[in-house]
């Protein structure tokens, strides 16, 4: 199967992946400690709405930084793909891989909002790691080796996923966002 997806930058896929991070952040914010977010200038807003919005914005920011760093890491470590296709291939791989976050986001929203399960973190962690692994497979199709095409993306996904769990857990009940 000759898949041309990864040689295009696919900005729409990346945008959708970033939105998914935002949605996951918002879903986590639903369960955060009610006192976790307090913004003096926005006191008139309902606290639940404010909390969900702040967590969602945090998810968007995390995605923008995290996916960018992952893409750069893969760019630096994939010499053969870098020389042949340039950075556009890596953006395309990240987009195609993390498009997989969409089903995980939909399912986590279904589980959270309809089934009442407190399982967003499980879906988010699995989705991030699956996305990173799939991004690596896209690079593998373009000639990336086993280390750069499978092991490093999976390690990157592990780090992204672990940091996500740590930051969101702290934000849910530990950190206080007071502005």
């Amino acid at each position, binding site marked *: 199967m000759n898949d041309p*997806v990864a040689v295009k930058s696919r900005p729409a896929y990346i945008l959708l992946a970033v939105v998914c991070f935002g949605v996951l952040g918002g879903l986590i914010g639903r369960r955060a400690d009610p006192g976790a977010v307090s913004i003096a200038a926005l006191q008139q807003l309902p606290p639940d709405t404010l909390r969900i919005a702040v967590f969602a914005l945090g998810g968007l920011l995390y995605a923008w930084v995290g996916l960018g760093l992952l893409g750069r890491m893969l760019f630096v470590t994939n010499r053969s793909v870098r020389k042949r296709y340039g950075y556009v291939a890596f953006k395309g791989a990240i987009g195609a891989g993390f498009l*997989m976050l969409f089903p995980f986001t939909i399912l986590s929203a279904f589980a959270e909002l309809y089934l009442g399960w407190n399982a967003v973190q499980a879906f988010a962690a699995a989705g991030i790691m699956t996305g990173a692994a799939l991004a690596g497979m896209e690079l593998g199709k373009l000639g990336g080796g086993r280390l750069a095409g499978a092991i490093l993306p999976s390690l990157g996904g592990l780090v992204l996923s672990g940091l996500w769990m740590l930051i969101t857990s702290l934000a849910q009940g530990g950190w206080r966002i007071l502005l």
Partner: protein
Amino acid sequence: MMFNPGVVLKSSMARVPPHFALAVSGLAFGLFFLQTALDMARGGHAGVSQVISTAIAGALYGSIGIALISIVAWVFSLPFGAKRSVGWSMRAFALGYSPALIYAAIGIVFNVFLGWNTAVAFGVTGALWAMGPMLATVREMLDGRIGPSVILCTVCGGLVLFGWSLLGTRDLPALFSIVMAR
């Protein structure tokens, strides 16, 4: 199947007997549901008969349920040319739960011998990891079209989740709350 499902799907699927493939997914869900029931029994929320019936329900869901969902996916692939047969779809969907089986088997060891609550860490995680191979399966069925593949993967994942919730894991929310609170 864990690290490169696309290669496995293309090269090995024809040689896999369907009953073996469905046994993999059946065993994966059976062990997953068994972990859930053992966690609940440890907390005093389930007896022996419920543990056994939950495990059997999981095994049946993992075999028959996954087979039915694979047929739904094959039907959805028909407008796109249906590159693969319904038998192939069944085998591929079922074998996509190979990682889940490994996770569940490891989880059972920790659950039984160490007394850990493992349904979330090993059971749910393993079931969610099957989404990766599921996407590879669906992409192969849809001739590599990534957009329709993601949508169909979402539909199939939703059906798996919905069936899972209908099977009486209504106590899973309580279990999640107990585990997440620790």
